[in-house]
């Protein structure tokens, strides 16, 4: 099994932050488009 890079946890955190921001924006677009 390859060694985990020393900044592995930071990488995962960055992926999560990116996903939260972009999915949040996509959700806001969806909600605004479907607002009655």
């Amino acid at each position, binding site marked *: 099994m390859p060694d985990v890079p*020393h*900044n592995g946890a*930071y990488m995962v*955190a*960055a992926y999560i*932050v990116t996903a939260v*921001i*972009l999915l949040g924006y996509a959700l806001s*677009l969806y909600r*605004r488009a479907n607002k009655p």
Partner: protein
Amino acid sequence: MCPPPGRRCSPWGWWDSALIVKDLRFDRFAAASAEVGTAFSLVMLTTGPIWAKPIWGTWWTWDARLTLTLFLFFLFIGYLLLRGAVVEPGLRARYSAVLGICGLVLLPFIHLSVYLFRTLHPQPIVLKPSSPSLPGSMLVTLLVSFAVFTLLYVGFVTQRYALALQREAQGREHA
């Protein structure tokens, strides 16, 4: 240079006629891009420090590129606030275009900041006159990411543009 009779004479002179082509499609596109740009800037300003902590040993430093990028983010926020504050569409498009041009002027400074100031950021390793000095695997990863984020940008802007059209149609119905 003043517009024809019946339209207001603007202090912007020639720039006014170039600035506003009286086509709200450009305004919608700019507004959509600004909103997506704000989201992308937020990603950059949050993931950058997460990367910097283990590599540079600090979350944030007030170096030229970081500070200018933060300024660009605030400019995006200001742009969106301005659009929310002006109700009349023509006036909103004009004011927004002026602020948009100010933001555009900032971009070369961000790119060239590593030449102009001493910063923690390295000199360009891809966008430079000689060939990229990046390992092949990293360059491929960078280019794939660039393509994916460009597609994401196009998708978001298309959706946001459609939303603006939908709102305008609803506005006309309620008028």
